[in-house]
């Protein structure tokens, strides 16, 4: 069955995750959640804070990310991100830390509308995790 494609998640320090038996990936694209299946059209988009869901034969995984770029081409999905956490490994205190950080940032006055939108997203997602 060839309904699978390859995913690669890269962060600045290393290649975070490589999998080639993925059947579906849901990413939090900037204009709404986006599900990617095999033979999707080539696309570039960027991500807002949210959860990446990866459905694959070897088990499903979810990751929390804060930003990133997603590129899909020839059944290769690459996600570039500078902050990514595996939800299974995330404990409550880490979540609380991130939430506190985000709330502090949103308390500042001089930030632009766009970054305020992103921060609000972040807070929302983190709250649902808890």
């Amino acid at each position, binding site marked *: 069955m060839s309904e699978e494609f390859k995913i*690669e998640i*890269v*962060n*600045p*320090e*290393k*290649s975070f995750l490589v999998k080639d038996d993925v059947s579906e990936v849901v990413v939090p*694209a*900037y*204009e709404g959640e*986006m599900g990617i299946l095999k033979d999707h*059209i*080539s*696309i*570039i*988009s*960027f991500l807002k804070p949210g959860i990446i869901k990866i459905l694959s034969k070897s088990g499903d995984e979810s990751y929390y990310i804060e*930003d990133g*770029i997603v*590129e899909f*081409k020839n059944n290769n999905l*690459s996600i*570039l991100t*500078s902050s990514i956490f595996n939800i299974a490994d995330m404990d409550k205190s880490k979540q609380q830390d991130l939430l506190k950080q985000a709330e502090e940032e949103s308390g500042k006055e001089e930030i632009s509308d766009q970054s305020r939108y992103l921060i609000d997203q972040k807070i929302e997602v983190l709250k649902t995790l808890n």
Partner: protein
Amino acid sequence: MASLDDLKKRIASVKSTQKITKAMKMVAAAKLRKAQESAEKGRPYSEKMNNVILNLSSGISDKENAPKLLSGTGNDKVHLCVVMTSDRGLCGGFNSNIIKKAKSYFSKILSEGKELKIITVGSKGNDQLKRMYGDKIIENISFKESKNANYFDADKVGKIVIDKFENSEFDICTIFYNQFKNVITQIPQAQQIIPLNSEDSEDNTSEESYEFEPDEDEILSNLLPKNISTQIFKAMLENSASEQGSRMSAMDNATRNAGEMVDKLTIQYNRSRQAAITKELIEIISGAESL
């Protein structure tokens, strides 16, 4: 001629210096492996980022309204140079090579009558540049507390650069760092990051057209600031590998030189010891003969 006691002391002191340089070489070798590894691991990210930007910029329709980070301000009056050096010394020509490269660039810019601003990353660069270009240095950043190059630090530098660009404090930004080739060779590099110089990157854009969500302009304006940080991070990784490599070969040389010195001093020590013994013998014999 130095007395036997003096020679003995000198041999001991050279030997202990040798021990230090040997230990430093070992440490540098261990750190080098780690730094090299992370430089290699960091490569896919910056390559992918570059690819995406190339794909995007080739697809951009309206060159006039392209983001300033890509197309530049249209001027080239004020140059910002980010000089990246290490925080520690004793690493051979590592820092002075970057400084040399940077200085020749500085004098070129100044002779063309353009304005120069400098940001130094790493305290060694600041030390060497502040004598000649002290009034040009607008910022000095140092990451002494961080053990390894990490993205967080690079992002900080990137944000400073972007802030200054948005306040139109400069037109062109160049970063200086050492590219790691191998343990013996590190090549000082000057890389222009604003506006983005796409000529030196290979042409591997695909014919295939992408779908963009949202449109190209918006993605680009979001991506380009990230790319600045990524480029700086790449430079930091290359730099830290180069620093360790350079230190390793410098310390290797120092250890070998110390060994040679010990050999020479030991021969001198033995010679003068024998000379003293011979002299004593002659004295005894001639004393016995005169009786």
